[in-house]
């Protein structure tokens, strides 16, 4: 519908996930194969029916093989097919889903597959690798990495809006509690606010339980054209809106370290595509990319679930609890499982399962519309995907 053009009906018809965590018993291609096989089985499709494959993984150094898409071509079921790799940092998985959407919506193929993988456990120096994301001359020397970057954002939010460490701790407690019901989750922790507050300080004010683990794992989704989707599944998760935006690079160039610019813009555009006016009321469940507790707080504001600076009160009011007005991360989110390059595809996959009504023990009742939010770079890339139980335009 962007630029006045109507989007064609496209739906998610299959989801496959591996167990996340330490997976020493399998190789990277094995993980890819596991997720792809599960997604094809879920969609009741044979590999031959896939028209194109989109591969995603985060910085190559995490997997330890340059251009891992080539290595995994066979495992991804991509031999003999159109195949390419998307790489946009933490939002890579969702970007691959968007690329698969383009392939189907453009009529290139009827059915496309997006698969994302990460092997974070084999990297003994993840934050050192993350440091290479930053400018080699001006920024690398300052020990900037994912943790210190989000620590700056946390401190900023606390000073600016009075957000407390307790409020952020509640985000961690809920995500981990939800993960107890997710068979794929990496960390299964039954913890209290005090546990979070007393956990080891990593980079003030970010503590160990404000952060995610590093997980091995893969996720795949199958996307199909309107006619094929209706054929394959009684209740596909229809793509109602999807949009990415990129922000500036230098942290110091941005007035405030937040999702306010790029993610808010992406959300506005996705809401416009999906005809959502009041997101808090019209979205039934959200899967947010929260590698840190502050990321979730920043996301709920940028997505318009509460006003800017209101994330603390939003959490205190219990709105994102499973029984609250807008359950957030029934899966346990990134705080419980973080297969880096696959993490954002997991958000889309979990949102799809919620719309399909197939999220098992983590299912929210009566979901008609689910939102997946993804982020990448150093608070730089934002993606919003809205899935619903009917295609745009009915």
């Amino acid at each position, binding site marked *: *519908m*962007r*630029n006045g*053009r*109507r*989007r*064609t009906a496209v739906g998610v018809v299959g989801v496959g996930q591996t167990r996340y965590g330490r997976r020493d018993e399998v190789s990277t291609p094995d993980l890819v194969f596991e997720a792809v096989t599960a997604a094809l089985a879920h969609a009741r499709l044979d590999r031959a029916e896939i028209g194109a*494959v989109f591969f995603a993984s*985060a*910085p*190559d*150094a995490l997997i*330890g*093989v*340059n*251009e891992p*898409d*080539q*290595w*995994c*071509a*066979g495992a991804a079921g991509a*031999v*003999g*097919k*159109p*195949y*390419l*790799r*998307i*790489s*946009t*940092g933490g939002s890579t998985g969702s*970007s691959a889903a*968007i*690329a698969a*959407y*383009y*392939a189907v*919506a*453009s009529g290139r193929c009827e059915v496309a597959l997006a698969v994302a993988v990460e092997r974070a456990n084999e990297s003994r120096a993840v934050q050192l*690798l993350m440091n*290479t*994301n*930053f*400018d*080699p001359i001006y920024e690398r020397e300052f020990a900037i990495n994912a943790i210190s970057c989000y620590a700056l954002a946390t401190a900023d939010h606390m000073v600016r809006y009075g957000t407390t460490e307790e409020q952020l701790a509640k985000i961690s407690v809920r995500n981990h509690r939800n993960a107890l019901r997710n068979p794929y989750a990496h960390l299964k922790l039954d913890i209290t606010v005090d546990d979070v507050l007393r956990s080891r300080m990593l980079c003030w004010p970010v503590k160990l339980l404000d952060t995610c683990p590093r997980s091995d794992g893969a996720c795949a989704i199958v996307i199909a054209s309107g006619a094929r989707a209706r054929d394959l599944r009684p209740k596909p998760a229809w793509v109602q809106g999807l949009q*990415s*935006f*990129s*922000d*500036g*690079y230098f942290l110091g160039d941005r007035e405030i370290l937040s999702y306010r*610019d790029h993610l808010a*813009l992406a959300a506005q555009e996705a809401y416009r595509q999906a005809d959502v006016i009041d997101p808090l009321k019209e979205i039934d469940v959200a899967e947010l990319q929260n590698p840190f507790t502050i990321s979730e707080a920043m996301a709920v504001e940028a997505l318009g679930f509460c006003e800017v600076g209101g994330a603390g009160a939003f959490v205190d009011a219990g709105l994102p609890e499973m029984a609250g007005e807008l359950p957030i991360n029934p899966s346990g989110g990134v705080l419980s499982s973080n297969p880096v390059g696959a993490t954002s595809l997991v958000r889309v996959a979990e949102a799809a399962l919620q719309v399909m009504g197939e999220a098992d023990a983590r299912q929210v009742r009566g979901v008609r519309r689910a939102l997946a939010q993804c982020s*990448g*770079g*150093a608070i*730089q*890339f934002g993606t919003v995907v809205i899935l619903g139980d009917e295609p745009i335009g009915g």
Partner: protein
Amino acid sequence: MADVAIVGIGQTTYETRKETLSLQELIFEAASLALADAGVRRQDLDSVVLAAKDLVDGRGISNMQNAGPAGSYLKDEIRVANDGLYALILAYMQIVSGSSNLALVVSWSKCSETNLDAISVAEFEPFFQRPVGLSEKVALALQAHEVLGRFERARAAASETVCRARAAALHNARAHLRRAVTRAEVEASEPVSWPLRQLDLCPASDGACALVLAARDRAATLCPTPAWILGVGWSSDGYEIGERSLSDSPSARRAADEAYRGASLASARDIDVVELVVRSSFQEMVVLDALGLCAAGEADRVIVEGRGDDGALRLTPSGGALASNPVSAVGLVAAAEVASQVMGRAGGHQVDDVRLGLAHGTSGQCLQSNGVVLIGAER
């Protein structure tokens, strides 16, 4: 009927070392040139599609720092981590899907700041392949050996390919290696890994390339001579170089078939100009054969003697990757060159009467994955 056209082209020159430009400035130069060429402002763009590789750029998530100079601040941006031609294909699908009306595609490499040989070793699987000492050069040599077995005059054809590329580059003001060489020089150049010699391989270049793509209605108003994208195709083969014939490229064949079908092309003989990307001179035979640009098994003869029909096919008039190799971007450069030819704006290396051209790109080792884009003057 084409839905998408190239309406703006920006290329930097290609050089051994762009000492006075940072990578970001290099990218900015290509992006700015393309926007100016299309007569649009950055604000007019709906989307930006990038192609770059982290290890070549020497940083993780290379689009963090490089998306900005490529024009994507507060824009819809996505990055492909394959050859630049694949970014063009993704942008094409993005526009056809109705998600964008005006897209900027940018790709780059600053090879002078990296060690391509060392990076290539990391592309090989760590358990069985790395321990035997595989690198891109060794893999290309294995491939060249297979090509020698399939094509009787392979050595002569490979040398001729280098001579032609270098001769063509003399007319291309942006080309990196602008010195003609003789077959004898090629065959006497330093041995790299038998049967490859130094001149059989691509240089490592600094440079960037950008294209502006517009949806049908927009294209006609923006550009008097849009270069229409008439067909695209891309496909992958398996990873293990020991499991496939290296003297053939089924994925290139499939990519071409798909693109020809999309353009309703009866015969590859209707193509006036092609820009091929090869990583070694020996690959030229494999690619020509797989794209159906000569009779099967005749590539060596065609390269040495000419096609023998009307001789109208013009092969890589820019000099291609054997003359200029900004490694991640070479396929996008091929598309930029074909678009320039179709628009009649290729300057010193313009060839006559171009109505239809083919751009080729490749990713992975020994032509594992290939892309083909057909670009024409008429919709």
